C-alpha cells in the first residue's frame, strides 16, 4: 500500500455506516482536531470519495449526498468575505456540524464499550432449562374481608327494603281485606277451640291458597297471639310455625 492521493478510492462506500462514519474516518486519518475542522480539506476529501463511488458505478445513499451539500455550504460560508461580520456575532458555520459529530462520537464510544462488554460476557455460559412438568394453573383466591362485610350490609339493606316494601303492600291489602282478616281470625279461633296444635304451613299452604290468603292468615295468627288466645312457636328461623291454644299451655302449667 502506498500513500497515493487516490488510495482511499479503493475503500468502498458501503464500508461506512453513514456520512458521519465517513467523516470520522477522515478526521482520524488526517489527525484533525474535531473542534477545529479544516473544512476545505475535509470537504475536498469527502467529495473525492463520492466521486470515486460514482466512477465505480455504485449507488450512493442519499444521506451521503445531503452531507456533501452541507459540507459545501459550510465551505462556501467560510470562504465568503462577509465572514468577518459573522465573527462578531460569535457564529461559526461549522458549529452545528461539530455538535452533531461530537454527539455521534459519544455514540461510537459507547458502541465500543458495548462491543467489548458483549465479548466479555460471551464468556459466561448459561444452562438450558430443565424439562419441567407443565402443571395446571394454580388459582389463588384474592379476597377482601372488608368487601365481605360490605356485601353483607348491602344484602341486609336490600332485604330490609324488600321487607318494608312488602309490609307497605301488606298494609294496603289489609285495608282492602279487613273483612277477610276478621274472617281468618274467626276461622283460626274455631280450629284452635278443638284444642289441637296447628301447623301454620298445613293450614296456609301457598300451594293450596293464594299469597294474599297466606299473608292474611299470618296476620290473623299474630293477632290471635297478641290477644293472648294462642301461643306461637318456631324452633328455628324460617322453620315451621306451630300455633297452640293458650288455654292448654297455661292451664296445664297452672
Amino acid at each position, binding site marked *: 500500500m502506498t500513500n497515493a492521493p487516490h488510495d482511499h478510492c479503493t475503500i468502498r462506500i458501503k464500508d461506512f455506516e453513514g456520512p458521519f462514519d465517513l467523516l470520522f474516518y477522515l478526521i482520524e486519518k488526517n489527525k484533525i482536531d474535531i473542534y477545529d475542522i479544516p473544512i476545505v480539506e475535509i470537504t475536498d476529501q469527502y467529495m473525492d470519495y463520492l466521486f470515486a463511488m460514482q466512477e465505480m458505478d455504485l449507488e450512493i445513499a442519499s444521506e451521503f449526498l445531503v452531507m456533501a451539500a452541507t459540507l459545501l455550504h459550510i465551505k462556501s460560508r467560510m470562504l465568503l468575505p462577509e465572514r468577518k461580520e459573522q465573527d462578531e456575532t460569535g457564529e461559526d458555520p461549522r458549529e452545528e456540524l461539530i455538535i452533531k459529530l461530537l454527539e455521534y462520537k459519544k455514540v461510537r464510544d459507547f458502541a465500543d464499550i458495548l462491543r467489548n462488554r458483549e465479548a466479555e460476557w460471551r464468556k459466561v*455460559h*448459561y*444452562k*438450558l432449562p*430443565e424439562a*419441567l*412438568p*407443565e*402443571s*395446571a*394453573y*394454580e*388459582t*389463588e*383466591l*384474592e*379476597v377482601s*374481608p*372488608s*368487601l*365481605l*362485610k360490605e*356485601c*353483607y*350490609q*348491602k*344484602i*341486609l339493606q*336490600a*332485604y*330490609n327494603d*324488600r*321487607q*318494608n316494601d312488602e*309490609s307497605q303492600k*301488606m*298494609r294496603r291489602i*289489609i285495608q282492602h281485606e279487613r273483612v277477610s282478616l276478621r274472617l281468618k281470625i274467626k276461622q283460626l279461633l274455631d280450629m284452635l277451640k278443638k284444642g289441637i296444635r296447628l301447623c301454620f304451613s298445613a293450614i296456609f299452604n301457598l300451594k293450596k291458597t293464594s299469597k294474599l290468603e297466606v299473608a292474611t292468615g299470618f*296476620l290473623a295468627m*299474630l*293477632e290471635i297471639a*297478641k290477644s293472648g288466645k294462642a301461643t306461637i312457636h318456631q324452633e*328455628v*328461623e*324460617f*322453620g*315451621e310455625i306451630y300455633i297452640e291454644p293458650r288455654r292448654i299451655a297455661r292451664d296445664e302449667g297452672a
Partner: protein
Amino acid sequence: MEKYISNQEELPGTKALNAENERKQHMHDLREIESILEAVLFAAGDAVPVEKLSEIINQDKKTTVSIMSNMEMKYKNSSRGIMLRRIGTSYQLCTKPEYDRYIVQLGQARKKQGLSQAAYETLAIIAYHQPVTKAYVEHIRGVNSDNVIMNLLEKNLICEVGRQDSPGKPKLYGTTEEFLRVFGFSSVKDLPPIDINDIQTVMDEIPVD
C-alpha cells in the same frame, strides 16, 4: 495432582515449610479445579464422561475420579441446592430431590382470582349465620343460589356441616378453614361486627291493623 489428596506427611526442617507452602498451593489448585469442573458441568447440563473431564482439567482419569468423589461429598454435606451424580462413568449436576416441590412451582403460573358479588353475598350470609340452609340464603338474597353455593363448595370456602331437623332435612352449610385462611381470619369470631337485629326488626314491624 494426586498429592492434593494424599500429601499429609510432615517433612523435617526447612523442607517442612516448603511442603506446607506447597500443600497450600495444592489446596488452592484443587479448589480451582473444582470450580472449573463445576462451571463445565453446569454449562454442559447433561452428563459429561470422566474422560472428557480429565482432558479438560488436564489430569489423569484416576485423579479426576477421586476429585469428583470428593466434590460429590461436598455437595451432599453442604447447604447446596444442587448435587453431583455419577452415572456410569459420567458425571452430572442436578438438583437435590428434596427441593423438587419448589422447582415444580416454576412451571406454575398462579392465577389470581376474585369472587363475584353473588359469591361474596352468599359467603357473607353463611359466614355470619352459620349453619344455614340454602333456603335461608335464598330468602335473604331473594334469588336462587344453587350455582353460587355449588361454586363456593368447589372452592372449598364452605362445606356441609349437617342437616336441619325439619321437613326434607335440608343441608346446613358453614364456612371452612380455607375460608378463614383466605380471608385472614383466625376464627369466625373475627368477622367484622354487624348489626344483625335489622332483620328481626322488620319482622316485628308488620302491622296487624
